[in-house]
């Protein structure tokens, strides 16, 4: 199944993967805040761009894949960078691209070493609304199933000539409505199956991480580094 791809890409035997998700989340937020506070300082931005790449190398993660995923932000920031360039602000254009890429690399590294179930568990421990987290987890679980349904609907439509001509718009709407009805039916079935297995409104994690000294060290390093960068660019 296509859905297995994202979880399969997360390695299970490196020092970052073994850290508690809460520590990694705090470290990510600290780095991103430092990035936001040093938005006009090239040196600080380059350091925060290189840092996740070094961590990825140390954790034996595929750096090229990480860069490829982080580059998803490029089309959006390229538009604004071009405006700044045309406005004779070449420095601003470069800073914008580096800033967006650095933020993307840090976020991708975090996702690559943190399975979504552990992330949602960490958010629950930070008192995020449980109902929202349950919906998010179920959404993630059935996302790829429904995407395959949509893919099949699209393939079926293409085999009949696609959504073209005067019927095209209504045809596509009909396909979406059928997908909605199927999703609704599937949700009812999932609900009944979950209740029959003892579902009480929450989804338990089978092997939760415990918070260790190494997690505290990770937080301390990230806060010191981020605080140091923010302090250095200010004074």
């Amino acid at each position, binding site marked *: 199944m296509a859905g297995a791809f994202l979880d399969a890409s997360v390695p299970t035997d490196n020092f970052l993967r073994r850290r508690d998700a809460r520590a990694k989340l705090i470290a990510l937020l600290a780095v991103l805040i430092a990035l936001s506070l040093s938005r006009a300082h090239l040196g600080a931005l380059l350091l925060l761009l290189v840092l996740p790449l070094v961590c990825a190398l140390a954790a034996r993660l595929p750096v090229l894949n990480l860069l490829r995923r982080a580059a998803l932000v490029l089309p959006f920031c390229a538009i604004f960078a071009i405006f700044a360039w045309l406005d004779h602000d070449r420095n601003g254009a470069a800073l914008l691209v580096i800033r967006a890429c650095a933020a993307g690399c840090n976020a991708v590294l975090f996702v690559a070493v943190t399975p979504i179930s552990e992330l949602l568990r960490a958010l629950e421990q930070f008192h995020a609304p449980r109902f929202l987290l349950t919906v998010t987890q179920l959404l993630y679980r059935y996302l790829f199933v429904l995407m395959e349904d949509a893919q099949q609907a699209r393939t079926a439509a293409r085999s009949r000539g696609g959504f073209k001509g005067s019927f095209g*718009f209504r045809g596509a709407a009909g396909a979406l409505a059928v997908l909605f009805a199927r999703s609704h039916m599937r949700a009812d079935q999932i609900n009944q199956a979950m209740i029959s297995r003892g579902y009480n409104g929450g989804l338990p994690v089978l092997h939760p991480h415990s918070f260790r000294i190494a997690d505290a060290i990770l937080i301390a390093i990230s806060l010191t580094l981020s605080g140091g960068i923010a302090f250095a660019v200010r004074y």
Partner: protein
Amino acid sequence: MHIPDGFLSTPVWGTLDAVAIPTVAWISRSAQNSFDQHRAPLLGVLGAFVFAAQMINFPVGIGTSGHLVGGALLMFTLGPGAASIVMTAILILQSLVFQDGGVLALGANVCNMAIAGVFAAYLVQRTFGPRRLTYFVGGAVSLLVSAMLALSELLLSGVRMPRSVLWASVALFVVSALVEGAITLVVMESLEKINPGFVRDGGRRSSSLIPAVALTSFVLVTVGFLIASSQPDGIWSLAARVGLATHAQATLSTPLADYKAGFINQPWLSRAFAGIGGLCLVYIVCWAISRFALRRNAGTPRSA
């Protein structure tokens, strides 16, 4: 419309995160109370549906196609609270798994799409009731409010954009909004044919005037300052010409004087903050007066 990290300035993302966190917590609690918790799978699967629905492209002419964004469609089928929660869940996954939108900018994206976009569609539904026009206008207004808020936040953060490009962006958003409205309309019509039970009627309509005024105020206060003139009004212009303006003195200094939040340096952010703050204050004062009046009326015995 998904703003990545690195674009918004610290005051902008900080403020919007500070607004989004308690608002989502409150909506989540309200939705949990009004929505059977055991039906969480329905919300999760319908969130996945919105993701999947974006794979089906709609032909919109001249060799181009568009796809559903889905905030209004979720609102019309699940209600405002549940729709906000599903949109928030979608934005969390898009930001953390698909790199579509930033982590620090998540609050901004939630405010734009999951709160303001859904709320705009809800106000349209409360104004017009369950009819075809509602679906079209709801879908269009929902997307337009979200897009214009995103644009405003980028401008407030100092992202450079020439005036011609700004207006081209606004025109593009209007076209996208019309496409979203049309898609929402035809999908809702198809859903009504398959099963009318899928569509919520939006509850009892007490008066269409109040939601209409609220919707207009909300749109004006959030995006109106983009097109507002910086010239003084008639009285101030006259006062300046006859030399009276220099003699004007404020007897009381207030934080929102001259429709600006004095403690914010950025001019547009200052005006937007003052606008939203003013709207909230007026609402609270009117609400308090009406509560007081109702309580007094309830306590006064009626003469026979």
